[in-house]
């Protein structure tokens, strides 16, 4: 019985691995903490798996648990990502990817690292095409609050990207 539950769970994780991977990259884009966070998220998802009754979309449920683990965890950043250079491996790129692309990704990571934990979650959901309604369900705030926050994030990103 447990084997079947484990098998179903692992299949779900494999299908939605992109979400977990993106959350990891968002909250610890460059350092080895990423592995710890990945393991933490999978462990938390497994603990919550028995309680998942399909009332929400599976992707919404995964976003919620993964973001919650990333935001409220006790993890300490071992190194400051802003002080590190971006390698092709870090960004999951092959060596043949162009310089422009690497520069773009550096902009992305600099911008992300300037955001607060809540802002990172909201930007990530927005970038992944999650609707405002779903963002408000995942975050537990009103849609109006989502709109206000997104406006503020946009202002912040504008300043960051102008500087870069």
């Amino acid at each position, binding site marked *: 019985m447990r084997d079947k539950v484990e098998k179903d769970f692992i299949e779900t994780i494999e299908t939605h691995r992109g979400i977990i991977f993106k959350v990891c990259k968002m909250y610890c884009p460059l350092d080895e903490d990423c592995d710890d966070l990945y393991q*933490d998220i*999978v462990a938390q998802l497994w603990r*919550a798996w028995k309680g998942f009754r399909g009332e929400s979309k599976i992707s919404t449920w995964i976003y919620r648990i993964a973001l919650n683990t990333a935001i409220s965890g006790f993890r300490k950043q071992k190194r400051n990502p802003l002080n590190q250079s971006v390698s092709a491996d870090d960004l999951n790129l092959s060596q043949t990817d162009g310089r422009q692309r690497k520069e773009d990704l550096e902009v992305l990571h600099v911008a992300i690292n300037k955001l*607060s934990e*809540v802002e990172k979650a909201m930007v990530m959901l*927005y970038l992944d095409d999650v609707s405002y309604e779903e963002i408000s369900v995942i975050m537990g705030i*009103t849609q109006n609050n989502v709109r206000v926050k*997104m406006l503020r994030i946009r202002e912040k990103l504008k300043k960051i990207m102008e500087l870069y």
Partner: protein
Amino acid sequence: MDELNELKKIWDRSFEKEPVTPDREKLFELVNRRSSGPVGKLKKSLRLEIGAILIAIPLLVAIMFRLSEPYFLFNTGVLVAVFSGSLVYYFHNLQRLEKIWHQSQENIRQSIESTIMLIKFFRKVYFWLNLILFPFGIYFGYIIGFGLGSDGRRVTSLPVFEDLPLLIAVSLIGLIIIALFGLFFIFLKWYVKKLYDVHIRKLEDINHELTEFE
């Protein structure tokens, strides 16, 4: 939203390739791994306390069989009762943690609020229970040291206090107890703060940020 759209293009490009995920064996290992999240840390603290009490109780029971004097039997019995009570309380809280954690998975805001509440509650429980158990712990040491050391005879005086007038000896013992208790109180406050306060503040800031336009 030009900036966000620009970022979105970069974001989409950076995840064009499918991420490499651990193989199935690794994932099976991960699902059996203990969590290192806030609730996982609280559970770890509780398990440590439970472990220490689980070692102390059989030791006390063994001492009860060894020390036949009623004085020691009664006092060791009291200690066993106090430690057993704590054990039940710790187990109850361990189960409660699990239950609350499952209930708190509605959304991120609710989860953060529950986590703050849980950590604050356990900070309080951890602090007071340790403070209450401290004198019993000292007495546990007394039973081990003097009860077994004197082969079951009740120790009524210590050589160092024998030459002192009774009032001074009693005052001195009282002062030592107060100083020990004070030091333990300061240490415990510092330790609990170190364990939980930074994290509580971080979560409160996040919660404030989440709800500021509600």
